[in-house]
């Protein structure tokens, strides 16, 4: 439970500062500090147990299907980082309280900071790979908010965006790597993964997984060639830089290396990739730190360099190197946080961080000068300070690594060079800022900073000295526990002491310090050398790349999504052709093993008529009316085909739908041009004909292949269960209203929605109404033919009776709600056609929208009704009833459902056609002519 507290208290803390107001800054800071302080106390309570070798763990199942658990652990490695994050975090809260200006929104700042702290704690305590990744991405997001805190300026915005892009991209790679590891191991549980080193190393997916994980770690820890985002992130407020770039954000990458060390390390790939990347980064950062003019830029590149050092140590595959790396994480966090805060104090007091303007500040701020000198000396690796200890351990390890074989001497040599540069920039940082003459053209006269602003630096400087003097006493226990967690086997007790006797590492340390002094003295020559190279602005390069990416995607969107329906159709059809064509090529022969049936002459004639009508629809499409007539021929033929092949339900439906479709299209054609202009180019026509022919060929081949192969249909189930289970002999209808009633419910809902959509589309539609046809002949004034009017009127009761009959018998004979609805609709529409909308509306004075909606509601309620009897949705029941006059009848609740279908079909069809008809009638030109 206490583990959960450690993570959740800071999360709660991200809400607390929002309660405080920006005016009461003291209260706000105290509120914020309370939560991490309690979390720190909880951690300290757990510490003795962890140091003794216990590993408290806690797991809740979260998304078991993804292997994601809310699982936390507190082993030695976690403990080291938790103490760092909470300890330095508290100092940062104190520092930020006095650093932030009146204009800055302090509650917002603290909220972001606490969110970030939570996500860091989550990373170091996660006991599940996916959970770790979630917190990892959360640090990217919250650091984006922190770096871009001064969002009114351009530089922080750009820096934040760059950091987010680089670390976010790395995060995605990390997720891919984690998933690969999860697949290799079969679990995302941390302990399982850490115990499966042999399995992972032997797997062929090891290398891709390693590369992806390293990509994540290297982008986060600003390793070469991803180091460029870190200096840009210096546009953040200094407390953020001090926190993110000393103890937390960038340490997440090296933490990951340590965390997965037991599972992934030990291979040649790991050795070369990790140590060489670290080595290059260490040299690169050290060199650029020396050439920078901004105090924070110097520290930023120095951070890059030190992270490289740690990465290199973790790459060495050796236990003592691991100890050295972990020790350096601790030491670097202390002195670098202190130095960042010092830089912030200087900035705060002098209004500039430009090293050319700052000089001789010791006169004004002696205390700050002393603290900066101590911590910078630690950074340079000066004896009796903590930086010296870990740096000397690093030099020792560099001598012992098997890396590069015969050229192994290169590693210690280059490590010494990096140490020389490190000593030089530390010296430059201190001497150029605090000593060496008097300051020039400062905007304000510097003063010693307030005590509370200096207090965090003081605390950290004391840690530097104490750990430097008594390493065995202070750090051994923590380091042993941390190393144990990062090793497969129990680690030997690290032997931390100041004096190891006269040996090679000591000589190298001495060379580093003296060399650093020499380089510092001769630095003008180095700068002259450096000036020969054109400086590269990584921000400009990055922005340029972003711009190019945006331009490319814009181009791709414009090309693919150009607003042309024809273009989209082309893409869809080509994809369909490719997919279907590929699978057709996959079968051996087109014809399957089934024997084909003989075609009777009648069928041949029918097929010829259908094909002819279909082709005529296409070829005569410019004469729209003829094309429409041809279309209706195809529709009628389809109806006959259904009848011929034993599907009377389909034949009836198709016939009724055909009638309403043709009426609909005729009405629509009245408002649209009667002829299509000739505008397709010859090449376009050839293209479309080829495409259509290819498509038709594929469809025909597929159909033939399907028809000549035996199929294993699930229909037998429906045939067997229709009577005993559904109480109906017409299986098609029973499927519709019973077996697959839920599908039908969806379908009538779509129908209803389409009808309502059309109603809305027709609302206030203003259309040009031609007074004559395309040939210039005026429309006939004799609008309602007498014969049709009288016949239709006498036909109506008959038609309605027929539809009721079809509806009632639907469960046991061809018919049902769909067909009955269509028949009713056609009968009513005939009234509109024969007598006009006004006449019909006087007699049929009800709205169709409610009918359609009521239909859907009845169908749905029928389904819901079965709940009342404790059955699942849409369970039907049936029984025999004796109805006077009609006789024995089987009635099922499905009939009620079918009633819903019937009403929906009637309502929707009439909603569409009657409303469209209304548009034609109002202000009809011929009528106006009559009146005129």
């Amino acid at each position, binding site marked *: 439970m206490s583990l959960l507290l450690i993570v959740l208290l800071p999360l709660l803390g991200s809400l607390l500062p929002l309660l405080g107001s920006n005016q009461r800054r003291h209260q706000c800071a105290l509120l914020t500090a309370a939560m991490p302080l309690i979390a720190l106390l909880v951690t300290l309570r757990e510490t003795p147990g962890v140091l003794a070798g216990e590993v408290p763990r806690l797991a809740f199942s979260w998304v078991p299907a993804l292997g994601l658990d809310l699982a936390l652990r507190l082993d030695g490695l976690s403990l080291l980082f938790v103490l760092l994050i909470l300890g330095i975090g508290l100092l940062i809260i104190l520092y930020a309280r006095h650093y932030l200006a009146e204009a800055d929104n302090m509650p917002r700042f603290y909220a972001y900071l606490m969110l970030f702290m939570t996500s860091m704690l989550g990373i170091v305590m996660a006991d599940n790979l996916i959970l770790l990744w979630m917190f990892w991405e959360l640090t990217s997001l919250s650091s984006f908010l922190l770096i871009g805190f001064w969002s009114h300026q351009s530089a922080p915005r750009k820096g934040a965006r760059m950091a987010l892009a680089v670390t976010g991209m790395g995060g995605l790679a990390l997720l891919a790597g984690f998933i690969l590891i999860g697949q290799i191991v079969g679990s995302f549980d941390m302990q399982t993964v850490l115990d499966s080193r042999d399995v992972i190393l032997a797997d062929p997916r090891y290398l891709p997984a390693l590369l992806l994980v390293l990509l994540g770690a290297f982008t986060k820890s600003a390793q070469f060639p991803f180091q460029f985002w870190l200096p840009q992130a210096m546009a953040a407020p200094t407390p953020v830089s001090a926190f993110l770039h000393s103890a937390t954000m960038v340490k997440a990458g090296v933490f990951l290396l340590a965390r997965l060390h037991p599972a992934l390390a030990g291979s040649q790939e790991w050795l070369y990739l990790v140590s060489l990347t670290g080595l290059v980064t260490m040299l690169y950062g050290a060199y650029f730190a020396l050439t920078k003019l901004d105090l924070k830029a110097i520290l930023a590149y120095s951070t890059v360099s030190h992270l490289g050092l740690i990465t290199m140590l973790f790459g060495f595959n050796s236990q003592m190197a691991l100890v050295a790396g972990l020790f350096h994480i601790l030491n670097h966090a202390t002195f670098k946080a202190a130095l960042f805060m010092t830089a912030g104090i200087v900035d705060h007091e002098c209004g500039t961080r430009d090293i050319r303007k700052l000089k001789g500040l010791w006169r004004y701020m002696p205390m700050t000068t002393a603290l900066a000198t101590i911590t910078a000396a630690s950074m340079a690796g000066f004896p009796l300070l903590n930086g010296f200890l870990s740096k000397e351990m690093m030099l020792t390890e560099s001598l012992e690594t098997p890396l590069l074989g015969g050229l192994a001497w290169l590693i210690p040599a280059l490590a010494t060079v990096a140490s020389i540069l490190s000593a030089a920039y530390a010296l430059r940082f201190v001497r150029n800022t605090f000593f060496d003459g008097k300051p020039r053209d400062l905007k304000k006269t510097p003063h010693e900073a307030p005590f509370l602003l200096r207090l965090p630096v003081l605390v950290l400087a004391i840690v530097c000295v104490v750990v430097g003097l008594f390493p065995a006493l202070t750090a051994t226990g923590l380091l042993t526990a941390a190393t144990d967690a990062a090793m497969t086997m129990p680690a030997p007790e690290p032997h931390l002491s100041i004096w190891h006797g006269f040996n090679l590492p000591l000589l190298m340390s001495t060379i580093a310090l003296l060399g650093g002094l020499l380089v510092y003295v001769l630095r003008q020559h180095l700068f002259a050398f450096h000036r020969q190279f054109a400086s590269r602005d990584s921000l400009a390069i990055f922005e340029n790349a972003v711009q190019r990416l945006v331009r490319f995607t814009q181009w791709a969107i414009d090309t693919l999504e150009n607003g042309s329906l024809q273009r989209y159709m082309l893409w869809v059809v080509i994809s369909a052709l490719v997919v279907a064509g590929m699978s057709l090529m996959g079968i051996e022969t087109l014809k399957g093993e089934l024997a084909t049936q003989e075609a009777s002459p009648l069928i041949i004639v029918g097929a010829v008529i259908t094909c002819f009508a279909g082709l005529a629809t296409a070829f005569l499409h410019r004469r729209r009316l003829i094309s429409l007539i041809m279309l209706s021929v*195809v529709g009628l033929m389809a109806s006959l085909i259904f009848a011929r092949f034993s599907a009377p339900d389909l034949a009836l439906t198709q016939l009724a*739908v055909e009638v309403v479709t043709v009426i609909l299209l005729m009405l*629509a054609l009245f408002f649209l041009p009667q002829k*299509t*202009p000739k505008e397709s180019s010859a090449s376009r026509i050839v293209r479309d004909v080829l495409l259509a022919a290819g498509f038709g060929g594929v469809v025909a081949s597929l159909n033939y292949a399907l028809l000549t192969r035996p*199929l294993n249909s699930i229909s037998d189930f429906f045939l067997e269960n229709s009577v005993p289970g559904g109480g109906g002999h017409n299986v098609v209808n029973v*499927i519709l209203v019973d077996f697959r009633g839920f599908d039908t419910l969806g379908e009538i809902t779509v129908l209803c929605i389409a009808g309502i959509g059309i109603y809305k589309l027709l609302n206030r539609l203003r259309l040009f109404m*031609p007074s004559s046809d395309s040939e210039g002949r005026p429309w006939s004034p004799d609008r309602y033919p007498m014969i049709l009017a009288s016949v239709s009127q006498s036909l109506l009761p008959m038609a309605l009776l027929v539809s009721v009959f079809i509806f009632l018998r639907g469960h046991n004979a061809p018919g049902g709600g769909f067909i009955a609805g*269509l028949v009713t609709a056609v009968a009513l529409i005939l009234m509109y056609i024969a007598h006009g909308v006004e006449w019909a509306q006087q007699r049929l004075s009800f709205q169709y929208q409610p009918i359609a909606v009521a239909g859907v509601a009845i169908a749905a309620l029928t389904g819901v009704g079965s709940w009342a009897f404790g059955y699942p949705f849409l369970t039907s029941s049936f029984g025999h009833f004796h109805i006077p006059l009609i006789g024995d009848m089987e009635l099922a609740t499905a009939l009620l459902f079918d009633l819903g279908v019937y009403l929906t079909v009637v309502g929707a069809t009439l909603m*569409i056609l009657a409303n469209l008809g209304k548009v034609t009638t109002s202000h009809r030109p011929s009528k106006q002519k009559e009146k005129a």
Partner: protein
Amino acid sequence: MEALFATTTGILAASGLYLALRGRTFPVVVGLTLLSYAVNLFLFSTGGLTTDGSAVIGDGGGEYADPLPQALVLTAIVIGFAMTAFSVILAMRVRGDVGSDHVNGNRVDEPREDKS
């Protein structure tokens, strides 16, 4: 007979697609309708072509036509009508609002008859 059926489906599909690739709304709607006929016939045929099969259970006791594709196609026909209606009325609305019956909404020269 199977080859004849498949050819018919193919020709209807090809004609429908050709129309669907045209630039004016009305032929596109007609094309989509034609295409839906082809698709319905195709779907229907997945149950096999049964001649003189029984439509209802207990009716002569002969071979039954596969009811499942029939149920699928039955709703497909009705939904197809709704979609045809929706697209053609959308086309009308577009012509009313944009003044063109081109599928891309281009304001190209309208046919002469509209200018009178």
